[in-house]
């Protein structure tokens, strides 16, 4: 089947031009001045924004943790339902994800607003109005709402492969329901936990929409910072590239750490 290799040529050319070269350009821009000379100033300037990095990582971590805690029981419940009902239930849970991301975030904008429905309802029972929108809490809420399905799906797909008899075997060997959870289900769903965490953490740490729509001016995140350097008033693609590069390195580091927890030798039956 050697002759078939030729078929991948058009894609390989495309891949080099539009995937490899752009990434190299990011690196090149990060290490050059606008007249093309080598510099490390861009990278060291990223240090000025350390507080934004810390804030982004912090909010993304909280959102990821909340997603994990909320999704775990959902995925478990789904995976233990009767097989023919699982598909429909999964569809119901995943359906909101098919709405455009901007519209879902916009929905929370109208809900959380000072004149929004939540404050209106609270007002009816004599509470508030509270400042809900333009807070860190609103940003975390937006992240959780938007990325929850990204956590549920990988968790569900590993848990669904856990044979019912393995759970019964654990009970047979003396596990109460809590021990079944921590000695069997959690270790077996580890690959799902790892991929769920990455799938939530990566978009959460790099978003600029959620912070812009729900966070107000005080919740600038890494994504906003990058966007401002390319399309905003602060136009400086070299600094922007440097920030993007640092972001990639952070994500790569976190993913490397996460992969340590995922046993590759483990084949689920």
């Amino acid at each position: 089947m050697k002759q078939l290799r030729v078929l991948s040529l058009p894609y390989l050319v495309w891949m080099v031009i539009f995937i490899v070269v752009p990434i190299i350009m990011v690196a090149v821009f990060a290490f050059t001045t606008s007249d093309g000379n080598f510099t490390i100033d861009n990278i060291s300037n990223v240090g000025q924004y350390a507080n934004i990095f810390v804030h982004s990582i912090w909010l993304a971590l909280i959102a990821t943790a909340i997603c994990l805690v909320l999704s775990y029981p959902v995925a478990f419940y789904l995976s233990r339902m009767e097989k023919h009902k699982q598909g429909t239930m999964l569809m119901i849970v995943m359906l909101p994800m098919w709405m455009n991301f901007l519209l879902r975030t916009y929905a929370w904008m109208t809900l959380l607003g000072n004149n929004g429905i939540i404050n209106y309802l609270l007002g009816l029972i004599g509470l508030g109005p509270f400042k809900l929108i333009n807070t860190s809490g609103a940003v975390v809420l937006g992240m959780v709402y938007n990325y929850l399905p990204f956590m549920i799906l990988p968790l569900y797909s590993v848990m669904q492969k856990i044979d019912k008899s393995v759970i019964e075997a654990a009970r047979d060997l003396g596990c109460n329901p809590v021990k079944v959870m921590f000695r069997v289900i959690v270790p077996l769903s580890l690959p799902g936990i790892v991929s769920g965490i990455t799938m939530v953490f990566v978009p959460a740490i790099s978003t600029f929409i959620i912070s812009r729509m729900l966070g107000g001016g005080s919740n600038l995140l890494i994504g906003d910072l990058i966007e401002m350097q390319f399309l905003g008033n602060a136009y400086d693609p070299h600094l922007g590239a440097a920030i993007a590069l640092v972001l990639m390195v952070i994500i790569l580091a976190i993913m490397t750490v996460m992969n340590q927890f995922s046993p590759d030798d483990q084949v689920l039956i």
Partner: protein
Amino acid sequence: MKRLGKIYMALIIFFLYVPIFVLIVFSFNESKSRSVFSGFTLEWYERLFNNSIIMSSLVNTLIIAVIASIISTILGTLAAIGINSMRKVPKSIVMNVTNIPVINPEIVTGVSLMLLFVFFAARMNMEFGFVTLVIAHITFDVPYVILNIMPKFKQMDPHLFEAAQDLGCSPFTAFRKVILPEIMPGIISGFLMAFTYSLDDFVISYFTCGATSQTLPITIYSMTRRKISPEINALSTLIFVVVVVILIAKNIIENRQAKKNAVYKGGRA
């Protein structure tokens, strides 16, 4: 225990759907209020259909999604076949590069392509717009096509191709009659995935569209940046209805398929 699970699922589903339903309800609201329903109207729908910016960006989005997903399906299918017949090392290099747009934060893919286009635009007198958008969409679509097809090769008997040739097929006929049908489900799901990602994409389009060409998500974004416009609610409602109809249809088809398979298996047992 079981009841607790049901209550929990109900709460999660409530959390996922309430924002969308509030949008839907207020799309029929006479006033612009986001909290008080003052009376029923279809005015926002009328305005939506008369809004030439929204309508033209919708058409634009569809055209781009169709072109990008068709080209990326062709490119990706050929690529997958080629990659599959590569030796181990080049194969894993190509697959790792292919994974970059999938794993990388969208904003990084967006700005990296933007840097490339800026670089070429300056030298080739090219403008940002339709062409850059299509290129960007193909770039993030192809990996999904490839990732959908590759597992089909793994499930396939490696001797099929040889068996077909042994039975008198030329390599081309063998490919068309044996391999293509085997990987067809992967091609179709890859195409559908590419199409929906294209329709839905905001971040990458945002960095690569320039000022002249707009997609629907970009129009939605600029609407949310301006004053309150209940047209967005109307648009959300319509999108939600379309999504529900498509997913229910998909679910019904899949259930039928599953039942057919079940009968087949039952017959053999």
